[in-house]
């Protein structure tokens, strides 16, 4: 079989005012009919840029500086925009990441489908409408007759992504480029969409480039895979081979950092590829830490009947107000010194629970006891706020961009009047040293740091008041997988050496398995079950938990280099 799309030695440049940034550096890959070719790499690897270059949708001032792109043996790079436009959509299509923004909100689905069909195929109006109907049915949208005349806002996220796929199929393309097509979707929807892409590729012999950062998606869906690092292709080949027996050291380090669903590791093995991983100095930190006397028999938190409603429709008249019940009568305990996990899909209420415990939301019902004392009522909670800290999801928004790093780290201690002047300055320098950034980092501003470094700053801030309890709300979901491994290792160190108690919120089951001692599963604001982590993963009791576990990526084929010696008994 010959390649339908052949990218050879592609180089893409973005000239900026200081230098020319090379986003893609001599990348080559081929796609065959009916094949799903995965393109994987961490942020900044240049994988999306390849997709944009093939579609001639490079953002200004980006340009193709070298190499060729061949479609069915015809060179399609270096053509002018008008020519590219006739190829686009007719022979190559694209599926974007966010289905919520990729459909025009002011036109019906029928209008958008028929318009695209008549642009590419010479068919009558009636035929176009019939095709639109068939396509919608093919991508699995029930009642296509009714749905055709609806607007995008009347579809859910997963349904919209199906419509986007239908639009991409309108012209019967030979190649589809799917750029993170499931990243914005929940796991259960993600699996359905990937299955659909898989089926369509087989059925219509379409070549698919699947761009993703998710090793699970690569392992489950693709036939071949190309691994990229800083604009360069480091390894390419059949998926099973690349993931099972990686050759390149970068691929090895990447695979070693992937959280496994089937075993619990003591620590992630950090196979440093470029020597940038910085040390976290837990021993120094632990030496100066005032450890709380741990009495693990008594729970730290006793939470009962916790309920939170959000006002959805305001009205003068109380009876006409509409509420969304985000958390519904949830009760559990958190023991001293454990890592307690909460998992669930988006909208399950897991973050809302964390925010109520953090005192960011006020509960509408139920009680939270901390060491036997209520912390839900009014009155001064300064003593409580000193003992809890939080690490947030998005390292780009959790640090005030207008504050210097030393001021950010010092703020909690300063506010609680724990330290001041020289002692405070000393503590800040020390903390920045300990998290591996160095005291000099205090003089900089957050924008000078990468995502992983920012998360370390967040950790330094959280430790400044020497808290006993740490809330981690999806602390690594915005990070690349190798950075995630570093941060998770740090959190494990903290918990072990400082006897911290932790609440760990995540939608990512393999991560939860690595981190947590006990796990609560939530769905639609309700608690489904609370179990010891290993017991939950080994033998889930509830049907919902079983269905969640079934959706975990099967990473059996992944290389286990460096992992065996970390497996916990």
């Amino acid at each position, binding site marked *: 079989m010959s390649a339908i799309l052949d990218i050879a030695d592609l180089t893409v440049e973005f000239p900026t005012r200081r230098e020319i940034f090379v986003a893609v550096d001599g990348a080559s890959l081929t796609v065959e009919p009916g094949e799903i070719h995965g393109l994987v790499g961490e942020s900044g690897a240049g994988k999306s840029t390849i997709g944009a270059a093939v579609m001639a949708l490079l953002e200004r001032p980006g340009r193709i500086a070298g190499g060729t792109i061949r479609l069915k043996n015809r060179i399609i790079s270096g053509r002018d925009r008008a020519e590219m436009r006739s190829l686009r959509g007719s022979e190559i299509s694209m599926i974007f990441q966010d289905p919520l923004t990729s459909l025009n909100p002011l036109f019906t689905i029928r209008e958008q489908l028929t318009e695209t069909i008549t642009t590419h195929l010479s068919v009558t109006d009636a035929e176009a409408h019939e095709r639109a109907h068939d396509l919608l049915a093919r991508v699995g949208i029930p009642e296509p007759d009714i749905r055709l005349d609806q607007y995008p806002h009347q579809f859910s996220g997963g349904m919209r992504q199906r419509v986007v796929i239908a639009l991409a199929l309108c012209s019967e393309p030979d190649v589809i480029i799917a750029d993170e097509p499931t990243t914005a979707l929940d796991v259960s929807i993600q699996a359905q969409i990937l299955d659909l892409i898989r089926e369509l590729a087989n059925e219509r012999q379409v070549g698919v480039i699947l761009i993703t950062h998710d090793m699970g998606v690569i392992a489950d869906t693709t036939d071949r895979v190309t691994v990229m690092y800083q604009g360069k292709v480091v390894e390419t080949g059949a998926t099973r081979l690349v993931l099972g027996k990686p050759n390149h050291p970068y691929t090895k380090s990447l695979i070693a950092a992937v959280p496994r669903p089937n075993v619990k590791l003591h620590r992630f093995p950090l196979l440093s590829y470029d020597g940038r991983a910085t040390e976290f100095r837990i021993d120094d930190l632990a030496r100066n830490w005032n450890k709380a006397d741990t009495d693990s028999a008594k729970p730290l938190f006793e939470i009962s009947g916790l309920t939170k409603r959000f006002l959805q429709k305001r009205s003068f008249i109380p009876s006409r107000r509409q509420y969304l019940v985000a958390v519904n009568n949830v009760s559990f305990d958190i023991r001293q010194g454990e890592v307690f996990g909460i998992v669930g899909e988006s909208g399950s209420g897991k973050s809302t629970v964390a925010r109520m415990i953090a*005192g*960011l939301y006020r509960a509408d019902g139920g009680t939270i006891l901390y060491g036997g004392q209520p912390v839900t009522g009014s009155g001064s909670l300064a003593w409580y706020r000193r003992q809890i800290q939080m690490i947030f999801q998005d390292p780009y928004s959790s640090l*005030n961009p207008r504050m210097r790093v030393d001021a950010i780290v010092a703020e909690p201690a300063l*506010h609680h009047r724990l330290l001041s002047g020289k002692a405070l*300055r000393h503590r800040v320098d020390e903390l920045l040293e300990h998290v591996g950034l160095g005291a000099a980092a205090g*003089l900089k501003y957050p924008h000078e740091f990468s995502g992983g470094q920012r998360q370390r700053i967040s950790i330094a801030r959280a430790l400044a008041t020497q808290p006993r309890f740490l809330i981690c709300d999806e602390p690594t979901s915005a990070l690349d997988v190798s950075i995630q491994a570093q941060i998770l290792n740090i959190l494990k160190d903290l918990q072990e050496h400082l006897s911290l108690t932790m609440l760990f919120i995540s939608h990512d089951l393999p991560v939860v398995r690595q981190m947590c001692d006990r796990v609560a599963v939530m769905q639609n604001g309700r608690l489904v079950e609370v179990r010891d982590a290993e017991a939950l993963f080994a033998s889930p009791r509830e049907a919902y938990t079983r269905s969640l576990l079934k959706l975990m990526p099967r990473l059996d084929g992944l290389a286990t280099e460096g992992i065996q010696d970390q497996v916990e008994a």
Partner: protein
Amino acid sequence: MTSVYTAPDRFNQMALRIRAMWQGDLAWAFRHSPVAMVSFVVVVLLVSGALLAPLIAPHDPFDPATLNLMNGFTAPGTPNAFTGESFWLGTDDQGRDVFSTILFGMRISLLVGFAAVLLGMVIGVTLGLIAGYRGGWTETIIMRVADVQLTFPAILVAMLIFGIAKGFTPVEYRDQIAIWVLILAIGLSDWVQFARVVRGATLVETKKEYVQAAQLIGRSGTAIMIRHILPNVLSPVLVIATISLALAIIAEATLSFLGVGAPPTQPSLGTLIRIGQGFLFSGEWWILFFPACTLLALALSVNLLGDWLRDALNPKLR
């Protein structure tokens, strides 16, 4: 946030920061925009001319002792037929030097412009922050009032406030407080822009996690609004303030031109144009022309700066 660092350390940091700023994106954009640089120079020249008016003006137009009615209607650059005196930009009907009246007129225009924008900004930013951060009924009330006021064009609101204030003051004080009434009228008419923009930006910032991090440790709402949110919403405020300055100068000139602004005893550029309009048809064009050019130069360069600033602070737009 008080810094944990001591004074000499801070000084060094400041020097470093100034250097970083000059090499920073905004300064780079400035150095590469001839339009912005020219506008900046024009604004600086005009503002310093107004500030230094008592020192550099050849005549004091408000001192009757230095006026000679015989000098009336002297054309620019040519000696007067009776007195032989020569005036750079000519004189008006009462023999006042046009160049001097422009310098003094600009003082009024700029005073009203800056003070009105400051007033509007303080009110608008405060209400916008509160509305965006507190939400709920507070927000509804503030933003409904803003919406209603926005329904009415700013210039009309300013006129109404001016008219009402005039009705309240006894005739003999009207001229004296006219300038302050103008500032009040224009300032109250443009707080809405600030409030809307700041509320929008505050809503975005409030959802960010650094605000939650501050709430978590128990900082008060006021402290979060001032120390955390305010610094992060300042760039759009800067853009609006610059554009508002141009609008306020134009609004002042318009009101004065219509005769409901600065009184003839304290003429602004608008008043001068109002006076000059009467002589346009009889051929003494300079009495109108030069004040009009000054007003245009001032408004245009401030607008160009604002336009440049908006693009420079919003890299998306390029």
